[in-house]
């Protein structure tokens, strides 16, 4: 019973703060709400038994990526935005489509789960967190070691590119 309550609470937190990201006009509140979504997603990973990934999610997303977003937004210091949302016929259509897809998803989900009880798959046997982390480590460093190394190269390239972008004054548009 406790896990059901936890799931609904986390679903409420993630969906609520996700909606806030779309709807709040102030970008700093958006970033803080997105951080809350990330923490909620990390807690969802814990309910799914992916403890290590949950910790990494907390460190990488909530602890580093979104802190960077918030820092950049605070440096720009756009206290209020007059044109936070796009206007016009096309974006109006997009808004209607988004709302339609959202409500369709919710309605479809309810109908699906009410109609077919067999779609609720019972979870498999609980594995201990140590075992699942160990299995992940084996998979990462033995079978997929090439992908891991390629990611390392990617990160190096990204680091160099970011530094050069940030140091150039105005990028390719620099005034002479």
């Amino acid at each position, binding site marked *: 019973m406790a896990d059901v309550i936890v799931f609904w609470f986390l679903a409420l937190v993630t969906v609520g703060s996700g909606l806030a990201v779309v709807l709040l006009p102030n970008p700093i509140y958006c970033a803080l709400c997105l951080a809350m979504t990330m923490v909620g997603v990390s807690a969802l990973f814990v309910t799914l038994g992916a*403890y290590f990934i949950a910790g990494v999610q*907390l460190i990488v997303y909530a602890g580093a990526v979104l802190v960077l977003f*918030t820092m950049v937004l605070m440096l720009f210091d756009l206290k209020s935005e007059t044109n936070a949302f796009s206007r016009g016929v096309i974006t109006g259509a997009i808004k209607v489509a988004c709302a339609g897809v959202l409500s369709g998803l919710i309605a479809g989900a309810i109908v699906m789960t009410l109609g077919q009880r067999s779609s609720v798959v019972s979870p498999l046997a609980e594995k201990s967190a140590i075992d699942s982390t160990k299995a992940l480590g084996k998979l990462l460093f033995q079978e997929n070691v090439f992908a891991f190394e390629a990611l390392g190269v990617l990160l190096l390239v990204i680091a160099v590119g970011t530094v050069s972008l940030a140091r150039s004054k105005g990028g390719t548009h620099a005034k002479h």
Partner: protein
Amino acid sequence: MGKDTLEIAINGLKLVLIFLMMVQAVPILVWLERRGSAFIQNRFGPNRVGPLGLLQLLADAVKFLTKEDFYPRTAVKTLFYLAPVFALIPATLAFCAIPMSTPIQVAAFDAFGSSWGPYVFKIQGFDISVGIVYILGMSSLAAYTILMAGWGSGSKYSLLGALRASAQTISYELALGLSIVGVILLYGTFDLTSMIQAQEGALHFQMMGQTVTSQFLPNWGFFYQPLGAVLFFAATFAESNRLPFDLAEGEAELVAGFHTEYGGFKMLMFFIGEYGHMMVASGLFAAFYLGGYALPIPSWNPAAVLHWSTELLGSKESGSVLAAIIHFLSFNIKFGLLLWIFIWVRWTLPRFRYDQLMDLGWKTMLPWSLANAMITAVGVYLASVAMV
């Protein structure tokens, strides 16, 4: 049903107790900091209220509570009021995962017409098997508090202090994480309790099929990872924004950094957060490198202490309580010594310049911790080859 309810209730109570313990430790640390700084600087320090000025803390608390509650005209009110509250959360949640003593065993008993137990209560907020990753993740959330306070205050000094502090936190998190990699490789686990259990017994090295055992030294992580320990300890100073890395609140340039605009109890909550980070760092250091709650003498390992106290008191349950108390005291002595080192360093070393700080983090500590992880990996591999 009743069995689970009691267990949940006790675990909830444990969380509250640990939070109260943390908050209660703060006034003692403030007193220690003020008396200690006075001792180091050859002054008296607070000595008027109560014996040795111990009641100064109570007077301070009353003062903080009765101060006027104000906020600056340019402040963003929501963030300004939320930031001090959020300052408490990461440190508290992280501290809950640190094991502080051996578990207490409670035998099955009958009460209120139903049978309860047997129970095993761990002296730890909650037992999470990936404790290290969890604690790192939680303490990385502290950057938000600082940013919220800095931007929400609507003042240039606060914003600059907050940007400095969060940049510093992110930079030193790398060195911190990498210096722990050595310990994780050595013990092969993310679980703090099993890490402490691996440090029991006497110090011994296995080389070329031979075992060298020391009679006096305990099997602590510090002897295997001296470089990692030093790097970890230095990085935690930067993580908790303490001198010599307290660039965030360099008084000469920034008045007081991100909490310039705060006063009264809100200020006190930032203090509790900062001391909370120090406590998490000290607890982690003790668990990684100083054998956690175990006594420092090799033959008095937790199992031996439990055996001795069981024989002394006659029953397994009361023996486990006595052993838990002994280990809790042992943990607290290590913990207190480490916290004293934090205070000692603060009043001994001068502050770095900002570029020196970043250079130290990125160009010195990061390569050294990488090298430490590399050497440890090779060492662990060689040891495992020699074993087979």
